[in-house]
């Protein structure tokens, strides 16, 4: 815990640039997705108790809080995937570290461009749900 607190302190003060932010985002999105994965396995398992309970539980996800969380979840999985590809490629091709900033910026660029239609479609679903 002390180590974690000093890490948080380091994060605020450290100026590591793109590599630092990629590393931090990879861990945060990973932990976030893992937390939701655990909840999601439990909510889906409730289907074994029949339609009444399952439909009631699934309806919770239609609350505005979860509508917004859903967009963040998609973003977290997408960023973690793209950054994971970047990490794997650099592992396979160590010479790529010479252009490491370019790869990090490319990852962010692809992420932002890919998220545009995702956000539009998800907001469209939300809007269509209450005419």
């Amino acid at each position, binding site marked *: 815990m002390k180590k974690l607190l000093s890490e948080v302190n380091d994060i605020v003060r450290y100026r590591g640039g793109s590599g630092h932010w990629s590393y931090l985002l990879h861990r945060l999105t990973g*932990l976030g997705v893992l937390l939701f994965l655990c909840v999601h396995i439990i909510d889906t*398992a409730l289907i074994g108790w029949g339609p009444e309970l399952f439909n009631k539980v699934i309806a919770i996800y239609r609350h505005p809080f979860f509508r917004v969380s859903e967009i963040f979840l998609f973003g977290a999985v997408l960023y973690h995937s793209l950054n994971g590809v970047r990490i794997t490629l650099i592992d396979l091709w160590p010479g790529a570290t010479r252009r490491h900033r370019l790869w990090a910026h490319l990852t962010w660029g692809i992420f932002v461009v890919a998220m545009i239609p995702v956000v539009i479609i998800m907001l469209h679903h939300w809007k269509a749900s209450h005419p």
Partner: protein
Amino acid sequence: MSLSSGPRPLPPGGFDRFAWFFMRISGLALLFLALGHLTVMHLVNSIDTVDYAFVAARYATPFWRTYDGLLLMLALLHGFNGLRVIAQDYLSGGKRLAVQWVAGFLCLALMMAGLYIVFTFQPEAAAALSAGDPGVLP
């Protein structure tokens, strides 16, 4: 201090080396499985169309059951191993051991519960059972 900007180096041997390879290979598989799952469930369909009848229709053929079972196993192993790696960075001694045991237990418990539901779920039987009519059960 564990702040580093490069990728994690390949461990020399043992379980950590195996885990290092597993994270990259399962990660590549999850790129397609997890993003495919999100695209089908949240873009093509949406949380407004997902309900009991939707899942029942989806699980009528073995394809989505197999897909979900594979996604479930790889995502759990990938996620909880990630938690184990983070515990190695921030914790030591008994605390690290505790996190690793809890992570291992949760991973196994969620995998068994999830796989059980994915492969044995029968819409009519579960509906009848919840309605208090066990007569239709085999």
